[in-house]
């Protein structure tokens, strides 16, 4: 009962944040509602027993990535987005299409999927077990992702620096 109550509470915050992201016109408001979504998702992970994932979710997603977003929004001084005219056909066909698709997905999930209940703290998500898995079975993917991060850092530096600076190359001292 407690599990269901907490799930519904944080799930409601998640959905409200996601809808607010769509409704808001200023990107900074969207970014802050995305932070709310990520923080309540961390609570959902905690309910499932995935403590380490919850901590990483808060630190990496709600912390690092969203700071990067907010920083970019402020750097570019992004204002409210203009309302653009959508075509009437898209609205007439799109809204019933979305409704039908959503109802179908919900119906399929609720009626035909495995309805076994997930108990609270079901996962043995302590860092020791995860570390053993990560550094034994998934060692190669782990190393590959470190290379991926390195390439991403270099790509970000090259892309975000001024074009002339890249063409000129690093400054010489002499």
């Amino acid at each position, binding site marked *: 009962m407690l599990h269901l109550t907490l799930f519904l509470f944080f799930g409601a915050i998640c959905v409200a944040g996601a809808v607010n992201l769509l409704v808001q016109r200023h990107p900074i408001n969207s970014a802050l509602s995305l932070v709310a979504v990520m923080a309540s998702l961390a609570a959902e992970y905690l309910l499932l027993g995935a403590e380490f994932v919850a901590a990483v979710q808060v630190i990496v997603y709600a912390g690092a990535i969203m700071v990067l977003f907010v920083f970019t929004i402020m750097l570019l001084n992004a204002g409210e987005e203009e309302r*653009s005219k959508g075509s009437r056909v898209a609205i007439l066909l799109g809204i019933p299409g979305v409704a039908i698709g959503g109802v179908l997905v919900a119906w399929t999930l609720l009626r035909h999927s*495995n309805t076994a209940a997930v108990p609270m703290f079901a996962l043995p998500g302590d860092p020791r077990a995860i570390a053993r898995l990560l550094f034994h079975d998934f060692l190669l993917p782990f190393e590959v992702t470190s290379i991926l991060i390195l390439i991403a850092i270099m790509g970000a530096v090259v892309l975000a620096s001024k074009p002339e600076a890249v063409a000129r190359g690093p400054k010489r001292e002499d």
Partner: protein
Amino acid sequence: MVPLSYYLLLSGILFGCGVLGFLIKRNIITIFMSIELMLNGVNLSFVAFAAHWHALSGQIFVFFVMVVAAAEAAVGLAIIIAVYRTRETLNVDQVNLLKL
């Protein structure tokens, strides 16, 4: 005790909101945030299935998704800065030419 399908439904709602935002938003930064929302929805279903099957590998996949999301955010925001520097706009309707 919460049925697994509730978690999957929440994950589906988040993913759907992400898709919808990707399609209807006009600000390039908000579109990028919608992609992050989709990744988060997928992460939730990974963790829910991991809890359902008592398999820790699902959580490892969540880490890899987070790493890819971090790399994607760094590169994507750099691209957004480059686009803004050349076009002076963040509206995707006005960024419709490959060539300047």
